[in-house]
C-alpha cells in the first residue's frame, strides 16, 4: 500500500485550520509530477496554488471544487497504474485525518529575544532534528510569514529559525541607524541564541545581503548560504517599488506596488494587501522602512556589494532567482565563478520561494544536505 500516496489539505501558517479547494488544475488519471500545480486553495488568510508533494498517477479526486476541508483531510490519491482500484478504495475508506502535528509552520513557536531594550521576534520549529539549523531572513518590508511554503519542508530534517528583521513583523520598530550592520547584528544575536556552532543562512532580497554581511563578519558561524533574488550583487534596484512600497497607504496603491513582486499579478490577494497595510500602520514601521532604504539604497542604488565575497568560496552559495524579477534583475547573477550555483526560474518574479515553492524547497534541501555532507568529510 505504500505505493499509494495521499494528497491532503496543507497547513499554511499558524492560524490555518481549514481550507477551501477552489478548483482543481488537473484531471483524474493524469500523470502528476512533484511540484506540479494541481489545485487552488483558499484560506481565511490567503489564496494560492497548491503544488503536488509527490509524483504519480492521479487515481482519485476526493475533494470537490468548493469543498471546505480541515487541514490534513484527503484531497486526492496518487498511485502507479499497477495498484488496483479495489486497493485504492480500501485506502480511501481507511484514511484517517491526522491532527496537525507540532512540526512545521503549523507548530512553529513564536519567540522573542530581548537585546539592549529591543525585541527581536522569530519563529522556530524542527528542533527535534539533529542536522545543522537554518536561519531564514526575509526581505525589505516582509516578515517571517514570507516562508509559509518553505518552513515545513526545511523543518523535516533540521531546526528552522525564521526571524523578523528589526523594524519588521513583530520585532521592535525603532532602529538605531537602519544600516545593514544593524540588521546583521540582530540576526547574529539569534545565531548565538541557537547554540549551534554553525548555521545555514537563507536570505531573500535584502535578507540575502544581511546573510552575506554575516558571512563577511563571522564566516566561522556560516555553514552555507542560499541567496534568493539577492541584494548585494549589483547596484541596481527598482526604486519605484521601494518608494511606492514606503509611500503607499491606500489598498489600491499597495496592490499596484505588490504586483511588482510576482510574475503573475493575480497572486496578489486581498489578504496579502491587508497584511502589508497592517504592518505599515504599526507605529514606527514606515520610519523603519525609510531608514533602511535611505542607508542601503541612497539615490536608488545599492551600496553593499558582496560579489567578491560570494566568488571567494568562503561558504557554499546557492542563488535562486526568477527571470521575471522586476525588483532586482537576475542578470546580476551572471559572471560569478562556476562554484556558485545559480538556478533561474521561468515566469517567476521576485518571490521564487513563494511562486515556485516546491522547486525552490527541493533545491534548498539539496544544497543544505550537500553542505552538511561536505563539512562532515572536510
Amino acid at each position, binding site marked *: 500500500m505504500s505505493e499509494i500516496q495521499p494528497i491532503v489539505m496543507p497547513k499554511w501558517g499558524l492560524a490555518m485550520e481549514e481550507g477551501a479547494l477552489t478548483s482543481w488544475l488537473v484531471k483524474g488519471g493524469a500523470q502528476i509530477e512533484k511540484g506540479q500545480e494541481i489545485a487552488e486553495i483558499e484560506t481565511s488568510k490567503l489564496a494560492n496554488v497548491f503544488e503536488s508533494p509527490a509524483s504519480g498517477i492521479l487515481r482519485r479526486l476526493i475533494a470537490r471544487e468548493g469543498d471546505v476541508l480541515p487541514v490534513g483531510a484527503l484531497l486526492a490519491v496518487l498511485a502507479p497504474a499497477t495498484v488496483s482500484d479495489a486497493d485504492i478504495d480500501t485506502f480511501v475508506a481507511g484514511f484517517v485525518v491526522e491532527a496537525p502535528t507540532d512540526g512545521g509552520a503549523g507548530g512553529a513557536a513564536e519567540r522573542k529575544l530581548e537585546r539592549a531594550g529591543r525585541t527581536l521576534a522569530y519563529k522556530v520549529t524542527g528542533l527535534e532534528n539533529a542536522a545543522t539549523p537554518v536561519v531564514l531572513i526575509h526581505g525589505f518590508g516582509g516578515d517571517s510569514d514570507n516562508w509559509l511554503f518553505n518552513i515545513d519542508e526545511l523543518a523535516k530534517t533540521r531546526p528552522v529559525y525564521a526571524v523578523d528583521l528589526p523594524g519588521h513583523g*513583530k520585532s521592535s*520598530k525603532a532602529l538605531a541607524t537602519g544600516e545593514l550592520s544593524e540588521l546583521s547584528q540582530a540576526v547574529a544575536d539569534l545565531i548565538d541564541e541557537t547554540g549551534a556552532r554553525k548555521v545555514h543562512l537563507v536570505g531573500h532580497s535584502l535578507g540575502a545581503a544581511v546573510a552575506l554581511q554575516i558571512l563577511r563578519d563571522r564566516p566561522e558561524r556560516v555553514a552555507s548560504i542560499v541567496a534568493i533574488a539577492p541584494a548585494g550583487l549589483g547596484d541596481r534596484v527598482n526604486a519605484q517599488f521601494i518608494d511606492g512600497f514606503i509611500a503607499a*497607504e*491606500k489598498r489600491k496603491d499597495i496592490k499596484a506596488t505588490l504586483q511588482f513582486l510576482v510574475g503573475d499579478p493575480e497572486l496578489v490577494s486581498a489578504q496579502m494587501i491587508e497584511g502589508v497595510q*497592517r504592518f505599515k500602520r*504599526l507605529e514606527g514601521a514606515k520610519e523603519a522602512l525609510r531608514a533602511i532604504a535611505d542607508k542601503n539604497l541612497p539615490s536608488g542604488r545599492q551600496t553593499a556589494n558582496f560579489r567578491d565575497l560570494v566568488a571567494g568560496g568562503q561558504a557554499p552559495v546557492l542563488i535562486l532567482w526568477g527571470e521575471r524579477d522586476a525588483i532586482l534583475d537576475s542578470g546580476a547573477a551572471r559572471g560569478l565563478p562556476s562554484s556558485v550555483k545559480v538556478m533561474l526560474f521561468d515566469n517567476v518574479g521576485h518571490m521564487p520561494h513563494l511562486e515556485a515553492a516546491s522547486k525552490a524547497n527541493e533545491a534548498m534541501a539539496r544544497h543544505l544536505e550537500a553542505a552538511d555532507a561536505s563539512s562532515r568529510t572536510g
Partner: protein
Amino acid sequence: MAKKSYREAIREAIASEMRRDPRVIVMGEDNAGGAGAPGEKDAWGGVLGVTKGLQPEFGADRVLDTPITESAFIGAAAGAAATGLRPVAELMFVDFMGVCFDQIFNQAAKFRYMFGGKAVTPLVIRTMYGAGFRAASQHSQCLYPLFTHIPGLKVVLPSSPYEAKGLMIQSIRDDDPVIFFEHKLMYDETADVPDESYTIPFGEANVTREGKDATIVAFGRMVNFSNQVADELKRDGVSVTVIDPRTTSPLDTETILDSVAETGRLVVVDEAHPRCSMAADIARLVAEEAFSDLKAPIKTVTAPHTPVPFSPALEDIYIPTPAKIRDAVLAVTRGRAQ
C-alpha cells in the same frame, strides 16, 4: 500577537493613548467606580466593562465617574475638549443621546466652523448601539445616521477587534468630535490584534472580500454577516466584493464607486431603519454618480421602519440576517451574463 476581544481592543487603545498623552481623560457612568457602594473602585468599568482596569492605572483624576445626567457630562466633555483636554466620554446606550443633542449638534460640532477654524474639539463619545441584546426599543437603536447627518462630527463604526483598536487610537488623536459606535453584541468577538499602537485613517474603506459579480456595502456588525454570505456564495459561483466604509463621516465614496463600476450591482446592508439611513445614502450616491454602471436595481437590506421589538421572536426577525443578505445578492445577480 494575541487574540483579543473587541472590548479588550478598545480598552487597550484607550490605555495606550492615556500613557502617551496626559491630556487624555475618560469619563462616564460607572467608568471609575460603580456597584453602588460608596468608595468602591473599578467595580464595573462602564456598563459592559470596557473601561475596567483604567482607574487603578490612571487614577481618579483621569478616570471620572459622572452623574446619570448625559446632558451635563457630555457638555462638560465638549467644554474640556475645547479648552485643552482630550476626553473620551462614554454615553452608555446611543438611545440616550437625545438629551444632549444641543451639546453635540450645536456646540461641539460647530466650534471649528464658527470660530473660523481656530477652535478644535478633540472629543470622543463612545456609545453602544444595535439590536439583538433583548434590551427593547430604548436600548437597541442604530442611530449613526443622525450623527452622520451633522457636518462637523466624525462617525466611526468598527467592525472587528483589529478595526476597533486602530480606529479608537485615530479617534483620540483626531481634533474633531468623534462619535464612536460599539456594537454591544460584538464585545466578546476575538481576533488577532497587535500589541503595538497603530491607527486606521478615517474615510478609507476596507475591502474585506473581493469579487466580480456584486458589491455589498455593509456597516458595523453587518460586515461580518456580509463576509459570511460572500464566502458562502463563492462556493455557489457568485463572487462578491464586501466594502466596510469604517466611517460614515467622512465617507470613502471612491472605493464604493470604483467597485460598482466593476460589478454593476449593489446591495447595501444597514442595521438602522430604512428611511434617511446609510442604506438610503449609499443608494443615492450610486444612483446619482454611477447609474450607467448599474446592471440591476440597487437592493438594500435594513431593519424595518418600526421600533426594535422586545419580543425575542420579533427581534430576531427585525435584524438583517445573512439569509436576507444572500437573497438580496441573488436578486441583483439573477440572470447575470456569465
